């Protein structure tokens, strides 16, 4: 396989059911793909969750991954948005060590990067920023000399530009929703083994 490795971004709609994240993650591991980032959340459609998954692979690997994702019964829709016009964003919170002397410098960098300080303490500042990974990497690089105390990043989320997007039709979702664990009490029923 002489094909070129590239970061592929998949938008994956899944049924909002227990264990689905496990199924998706297990598939990547089993087929030898390494997830670089994965972000999950609710969507415009009740009952459907949306994952944004970034994987380093070649074009053939990306196609096989898409086909394999579709083999999971709970996967509703898969789109590789790597080659389509799309907006990629990540959110990061960065806790930087500051002193009376350095705080102004740090705040200036925050302004330059259009980030926000969301917590200021005598010895630290928490900075929130959204942007591409490159932008966040850049901000981290300039903050590093001051002392990075803690960094958290959400991983990439993606949205296709223009009116058409990656969506699922709510009518496609099964009527039978996820059921709570609470079963009606029945004296005949034993919960022990």
């Amino acid at each position, binding site marked *: 396989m002489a094909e070129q490795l590239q970061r592929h971004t998949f938008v994956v709609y899944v049924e909002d059911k227990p264990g689905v994240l496990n199924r998706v993650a297990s598939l990547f591991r*089993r087929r030898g793909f390494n997830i670089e980032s994965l972000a999950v959340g609710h969507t415009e459609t009740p009952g459907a969750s949306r994952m944004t998954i970034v994987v380093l692979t070649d074009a053939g690997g990306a196609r096989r991954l898409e086909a394999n994702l579709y083999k999971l019964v709970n996967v509703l829709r898969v789109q590789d948005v790597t080659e389509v016009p799309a907006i990629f964003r990540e959110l990061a919170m960065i806790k930087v060590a500051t002193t009376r002397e350095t705080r102004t410098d740090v705040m200036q960098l925050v302004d330059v990067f259009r980030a926000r300080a969301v917590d200021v303490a005598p010895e630290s500042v928490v900075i929130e920023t959204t942007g591409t990974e490159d932008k966040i990497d850049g901000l981290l690089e300039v903050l590093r000399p001051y002392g990075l105390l803690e960094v958290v990043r959400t991983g990439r989320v993606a949205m296709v530009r223009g009116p058409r997007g990656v969506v699922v039709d709510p009518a496609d979702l099964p009527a039978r929703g996820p059921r709570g664990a609470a079963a009606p009490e*029945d004296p005949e029923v034993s919960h022990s*083994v």
Partner: protein
Amino acid sequence: MASMRTGAQIIWEALVREGVTTVFGYPGGAILPAYDALLDYPIRHVLVRHEQGATHMADGYARASGQVGVAVATSGPGATNMVTGIATAMLDSSPIVCITGQVGSRVIGTDAFQETDVTGVTLPITKHNYLVSHVDDVAPTIHEALYIARSGRPGQVLIDITKDAQQASTELQWDPGDVKLPGYRPDLRASDTEYSRAADLINGSKRPLILAGHGVLLSGAMAQVRELAERANIPVAMTLLGIGGFPALHPLNLGMMGMHGEAWVNQAIQEADLLLALGMRFDDRVTGNTKTYAPNARKVHIDIDPSEFNKNVKVDVALAGDLASVLDDLAPRVTAGDRKGWLDAIRDMKGEVAVRDIQNLPDSGHLYAAHVINDIWRLTGGKAVIVTDVGQHQMWEAQYYHHDEPRSLITSGGLGTMGFALPAAIGAKLARPDAEVWVVAGDGGFQMTMAELATIAQEKIKINVAIINNGYLGMVRQWQEFFYERRYAATPLLSPDFAKLAECFGLTGLRIDRRQDVVPGVEKARAAEGSVVIDFRVEQEDTVYPMVPAGADLHKMIRRPSSAPIVETADDE
């Protein structure tokens, strides 16, 4: 008229409504409510001796009949014992549904007695699985599970049902309507462009070859494959699991491809200008080194599972869909052709090697596995269902038993599961009670699951068992001979007296170590009312030829040492 049923009753009621008549299982604590309800339903339950056997039986049942096989076990060890059987079925796309009991929903996650996260354990080896903890979900889940198992690429579905869901009651509302699975697409269709490109490649090819896999049987596309082959004069090579998908004695049949395929088959693949891969997945046992595989050939791949395309071998055209229907649509676009030059060239590749004709060999007094298998083929008229284990005997079976009928060879191909044969044969016999069923197993694999002889006795099933007993784990020994300087580490194998063992189980046992006794022995077994186990004491260090070493180029095979099909020693005169 809705009426109250317990979850346990619903399990069986749903299975009956789905057409299930036979299940293979083993009771235990967490599945006890279901077993209590079983007595009231018209289902034949086969008590196995190990839950692995239950899954192999369900698998054998499915392979013999095309119907979904069903296995049942309790939680914890019962369920984990099923893992090997589920994985075996998965690698060979055999449709089975496994129902396991689970501890009560309130104690899940507390490491309760016999609790195992079975849906977690089986996640990578099932097509789909369910944890059912509410009685109202039992019926729809079983309906869905059987649908998923049998549709699309056939698969394995495990349903883990908590004990409280079995005990609770609900109104059974059976809704046998269409299953609504928005993310499930078993009915893919290839585009018109893809059909045209495939047809152009076929019509333009001078040296085409059909590679027929298990998909031919699973899709029931035997007639379509034959029509295509005959119309365009395309020779057919088969994978191990494709055997039976095209008549063995058809003039266009080349035989089995791959690691132990005949030399001319692999040579034809290497020289072909077009490979038409039908329901097969270019397994490494079939391709050898993929870098040098079929270097001159364009490739057309038809499979129901698009994730198989370009997985192991890059293809030029891929058509997704059910094979029979794809071939129905493709056939009108394929033009007739005589391809005489190509067929002649393949005949020349075959040369003098008349390996298929071993019945005329002089009787040397030595007993070879090939003799045994070839004699079973002749005496059964090629009409038996042969269930093999894994190893040398499996390859000899593929070489010396000629299968004209689909679903007449049942064997663990993808996973290569030793111990498969005996339980799978029980499943096959129950699926097709009128079929003559033979187990062909080695002395090693047979001992892995031989406890199921008791199941045969208890169920009063008629199966004949041919143990190809060479005192070694033969295939591993062969690899040690070729690749590890004959250092036979842990391959010499002491076995019990299998004939006596059979008697202990109430069956008939025979031991045969001379060639002249093979025919009478096989005839005796066939005529016997009950099951017969024959211990064939064959040549100990016999070798399966030809052989493509793992990862080697397909055309660089280890050939038979002489033109004789079977190694005969000097004192044979």
